[in-house]
Structures are given as structure tokens and as C-alpha cells.
């Protein structure tokens, strides 16, 4: 398994099972988008316990996961990711999304979507408002808005 970090995005290659993600120390820091290139024949997990652990890990991850999928990609693996893209879409995908945005914006928007996986709409509505005021604070002198 190899992890290549590019700013707030990271690519991970050489995975035969997504269960390997759980031990990837590189993902514990500033990653907002993880692009997963599964090996041919890669699976979500080798057992039901592993699959449950991976699903839980991905549902709670503070970053978004994009699985690079082909016709033969394991259905359970692709379904567990937030995003499914083809190998041609994967090229430049992070740049297309993140280009021109500040680090703070990328983090705040990603955090809202990470919560939106499981949180009720009311909670996400509140989160997006608080994120907005955190982002707007520096532009108007800062300090006066909810942090």
C-alpha cells in the first residue's frame, strides 16, 4: 500500500482490501479527499467483521473517499466510498474540485459533507451556518463570529 499526498488530497494505491486503510497513519493528518486506486480483485474486507469495520471507518472519516472504479471493481468496495469515478475522471479530479479555494474552505466544506453522510438535515443545516461564519470572520476583521 502506497500513499501519495498532494496538498489536501491523497492517492492510495496497491490496496488488496480496504481494511488496510485502517492502519494507514498518513490519513490521520490533513487529508480532505482520499482517492483510492484499488488493485485488480481488491475487496472491501476479507470477512464480515472487516467489512463492517471498513464501513464504519469510512462513515466516520473526516475526509471524503473517491474510489476509482472499473467494470470489474468489487461492488461492495465501490458502494462504501462517498464518490465513484473512472480512471479518466480521477486524473485532475482533486484539482478540479479544489482549484482556487482556500485551505479553510476545503476543510469546512468537506467537514459539512462528512457529517452529511449520517447526520440529520437539521444538524447539517446548523453546521453549514457555523462553517460560513468561521470562513467569513477573517474578511471582516475576525473575532466577532462564532468559532
Amino acid at each position, binding site marked *: 500500500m502506497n500513499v501519495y499526498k498532494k496538498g489536501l488530497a491523497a492517492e492510495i494505491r496497491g490496496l488488496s482490501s480496504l481494511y488496510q486503510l485502517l492502519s494507514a497513519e498518513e490519513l490521520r493528518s490533513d487529508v480532505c479527499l482520499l482517492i483510492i486506486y484499488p488493485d485488480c480483485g481488491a475487496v472491501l474486507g476479507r470477512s464480515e467483521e472487516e467489512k463492517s469495520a471498513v464501513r464504519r471507518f469510512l462513515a466516520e472519516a473526516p475526509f471524503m473517499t473517491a474510489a476509482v472504479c472499473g467494470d470489474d471493481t468489487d461492488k461492495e468496495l465501490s458502494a462504501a466510498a*462517498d464518490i465513484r469515478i473512472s480512471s479518466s475522471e480521477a486524473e485532475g479530479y482533486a484539482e478540479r474540485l479544489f482549484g482556487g479555494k482556500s485551505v479553510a474552505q476545503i476543510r*469546512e466544506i468537506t467537514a459539512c459533507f462528512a457529517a452529511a453522510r449520517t447526520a440529520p438535515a437539521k444538524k447539517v443545516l446548523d453546521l453549514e451556518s457555523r462553517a460560513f461564519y468561521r470562513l*467569513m470572520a477573517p474578511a471582516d476583521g475576525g473575532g466577532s463570529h462564532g468559532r
Partner: protein
Amino acid sequence: MGDNKGMILEEREGILILSMDMPRNNLMTADFFREYEAVMERVEKLAAERAYKGLIIRGAGRHFSVGADVEALAERTAAEFTDGSSLPEGHIRQKHFFTFLRELPFPVVSVVTGFCIGSGCEIAANSHYRIAEENARIGQPESAFGMLPALGGIARTAELCGIQNAYELVMSGDLITAERALAIGWADILVPKKQGFQEALALIGHISENTEKFVPCRYRSYIGSYPDERGERI
């Protein structure tokens, strides 16, 4: 306001119709938000007083809304004060008049024409249904201006389009076509130019005739019984 007539709220045969006719293609200035909040306060009171078949929201001109005036938004934000743990009162009030649309006891249908951008897009996203005309361009470009959509643009778009499509729409800030909006689930119905309003009347008529009581939390299921222009089920 010049030649514009402001927020026009009418009733036709039990259907409330809001035509937004504010300057510069419904550019969301401080004036726009003041008028919008006032008219939505009226809608909320009317809804509490008697039963209506539905509410249609549309732009009076070519465009639904070109979105927020970024400079005015920055000024407003700078003027707001919070103790650090709570959101500004002005924002809470403003957001209520966007998100309460989903709680109204009758179907709220946005007729999306021309540009439907930013906070304009959030009015539509907070509605129960979106009828997009073929010329429409839809998007949440806030991220291109150093901010993010905070009037339901993240929460509602994620509900409507799923995490992937919503994340791409919000993070990229790209505008999408009406056809694409239909494909990703943002729009419920796609119609030719100038057909959106009639379609909205027909949809509300269909729901009121076929539904004893509109249940907002199950709103998307009602569209499943609605025939499209070819007479097929959507």
C-alpha cells in the same frame, strides 16, 4: 426598485404564487433579503390561517435569481455580532425563511428559469419540488468567492443529489445545465422554455387531487405518481 415590482404574492384558485421581481435579475442585495423575508413571513402566516393547495416560486423575468451580491453579503456579515457560540440573529431569521419552505403543509414548487445561482439556488433546493426549464443554469458558486452556501445549499443539495453530486457541485462551484440537474436528482421535472409555470400548476393540481394530506417528510414520493409530458410515470 425602478421598473421592478418587488415580491408579488398572489392567490389563484387556492395556490399561492410568488413572483420575484427585484432589480438586476433578483440579485440578492440587502433589499432583496428584506423583501424576501417579509413576503415569506406573510406566507407563513397565511399557511397557518387556512389550507392552500400549494406555493409556486418563480422569477418574474428571465432568471430565477442570479444569487447573492457578494459585497453586500460581506457588509452584512461584518455588521452582525455574535458572542462566539451562537449564530447571528439575522442569519437565524434569514435561514428560517429559506428552510421553513420544506415544512409547509402544502407542496412548494420552484420554477427554475435562466440563472438559478447561489442563494437563489438555495430557495429552490429548500422547496419540495424543482421544475427546471431547458435554458436554466444551476449552481452553488459560493466556493469561488471564498465562502460556502449556508442557507441549505449543503444540507439540501446532499439530500437531493447524494453526497457525490452535492460535493462536486458545492466544492467546484460549477454551474450545471437543467438536463444535468435532472440527471443528478436536483431537478424533479425538465420542461421546455416557458412551460415551467403551467407544469407547476399541473403538479400542484395533481397532488391536491390525489393526496388527502400532503406529508412534507415524504414529499419526494408524491412525484412518483405524477405523469410526465409523455404521459409516463416519473
